[in-house]
């Protein structure tokens, strides 16, 4: 047996001997695999979009709401101009089909070290804590979520769910399975590591702006 296999068996055997039993039988294993926990979910009595906005903004995130997907480029451009950002952006390929303004240089590659703004499509919103759920993939590179100073996220109002558990159902329903990275984002990057003083923009985006569609 190789050293690696040895260590694996030794640890599993040590666990079993501590539990004073041998390996579980197939019946018990099947029962454990079939277990569907029903943990307590914190009560909510608020409309989902309103709660999402309230919670997300409570942590220094900002939001805007537009009527349809076609309105997204103008809302992004308004944000960019308002913040005085350069006229270029990394845009997830999920938003490729939108009519981006001619003056805005857009690409769909990962975000490099000098990228200033990224625009991404969220897979879902979770109203419970007011968080975005991003699924990585060719249409939504992970670097878009973390490298630029400004992150603009497009979220469909209908994709906001109440609790985490419902967001997991969205993940489980994906034909392609789990993405490499599922990023749940609750606002701008922050730190309190110097004398517990909260400072935004530690390593990730300094600002996160959500455009809610619908």
């Amino acid at each position, binding site marked *: 047996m190789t050293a690696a296999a040895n260590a694996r068996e030794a640890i599993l055997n040590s666990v079993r001997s501590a539990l004073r039993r041998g390996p579980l039988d197939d019946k018990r294993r099947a029962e454990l695999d079939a277990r569907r926990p029903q943990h307590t979910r914190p009560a909510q009595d608020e409309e989902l979009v309103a709660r999402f906005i309230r919670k997300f903004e409570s942590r220094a995130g900002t939001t805007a709401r537009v009527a349809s997907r076609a309105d997204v480029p103008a809302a992004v451009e308004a944000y960019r101009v308002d913040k005085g950002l350069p006229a270029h952006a990394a845009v997830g390929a999920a938003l490729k089909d939108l009519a981006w303004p001619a003056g805005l240089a857009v690409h769909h590659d990962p975000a490099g070290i000098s990228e200033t703004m990224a625009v991404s499509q969220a897979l879902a919103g979770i109203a419970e804590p007011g968080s975005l759920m991003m699924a990585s993939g060719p249409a939504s590179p992970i670097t878009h*979520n973390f490298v630029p100073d400004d992150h603009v996220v497009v979220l469909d109002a209908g994709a906001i769910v109440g609790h985490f558990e419902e967001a997991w159902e969205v993940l489980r329903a994906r034909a392609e399975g789990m993405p490499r*990275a599922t990023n749940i984002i609750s606002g701008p990057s922050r730190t309190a590591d110097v*004398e517990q003083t909260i400072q935004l923009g530690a390593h990730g985006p300094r600002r996160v702006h959500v455009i809610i569609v619908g």
Partner: protein
Amino acid sequence: MEIRSKEFKERAVFAIHDASLQQALGKARGGFVGKRAQQAAELPEFEQLREEAKNTKNHILDNLDHYLERYEAAVTAAGGHVHWARDAEEARKIILDICKRVDAKTVTKGKSMVSEEIGLNEALIEHGMEVVETDLGEYIIQLAHEPPSHIIAPAVHKTKDQVSDLFEAAHGGPRKTEVADLVNEARRVLRDKYFRADVGITGGNFLVAETGSSIIVTNEGNGDLTQTLAKVHIVTSGIERVVPTLDDATLFLRLLARSATGQETETYTTISTGPRRAEDLDGPEEYHVVLVDNGRSKMLGGRFKDMLRCIRCGACMNHCPVYGAVGGHAYGWVYPGPMGSVLTPLIKGLDNAYDLPNACTLNGRCASVCPVKIPLPDLLRELRHMQHQQDITPVMQRRALKVWRYVATRPKLYHALEQVGARFLSAIAKNGSIRRLPLASGWTDVRDLPAPAGRTFLELWQGKRGQK
């Protein structure tokens, strides 16, 4: 990391006289406690969740072998690799071998207490690699060549002035004095490291058996840049961190941020599953998880099984009067405070950490805030009991305890001595207090001892009953 818990008393005395440390601890003390209390009060289900979290962890621990195997199968199916390490040395070797195979020159690290536990940084540096801690707190203490003093706020013992000095020495001037400028400077320096890194190492708050995912919870985003931009992502985690499903992870997520930093949620919860897919544009090409036992499976069988429920939130140390007075470094190893006083003797040996279980007033605050209801004072008392049984307790203390037992089991003798004591103390008191008392200088050196009334409680009580 070399254990120095035997020096607890000396280190505690040093800490109490360290003005900068006391200033830093003073600033931290109220914040964590108040914010946690507010979060707990705002969630009516909080106590219910604590009970469920305790029961769920117990269920996991009772079936740990199965959930670990299921987790391993799911990681493998997602294209990742699981490695098993019996102890710190095996864990270091596994990680070193991966780093050497990909010819790693720069290794970035997100916060990982297990990597501290296994002494990883020293091993990588010894083999010529540049190791960069990217969590701001970890980065600060790496510049100071110090270990973390808190499991979630590693640089909590540093004042802003000290951080300014460290940054000026490392990055050059001009010296920054505002928190915003210090954070920006670290951001700029570390950006470059993320993009150059060959290997990125993070911890794992939870390992999900259902999906083969590791979950980390952070505020800064450093853990994400670390694992996304390096060619190889390695996760270090204890074997007890596995949970069956995403729904189970959620139960603990609802408690973790509230208990740790007093936030409703941390900024980033990241679920990592395997390496980048063929069609992905970014992400690591390899994904490895190192499952570290290092004494945990042994704990599972005995009286300390409860300790394996720990989700490393740090609430116990935030609420501990001893930790609040001396800070984390006095404890002499990786894990400080109440949870560290239980774990250190169990992982590093009872005789290597004699003072830790005894540096506790048994006030019980830690247990009352623990999100998974670990009975920390009971476990500390149990360790004291074991120390006594294994003859580790000092001889003088053992003799004194024997005398105490002799007296305490003889009520007449006990009350007679009590009467002598009460009269003696009352006689030497001035203005109702005692300034100096032989054999009790530990108390009277720093404060007066209130004098007793001259008669014992029993005498007074019996006097009252006689009056009726």
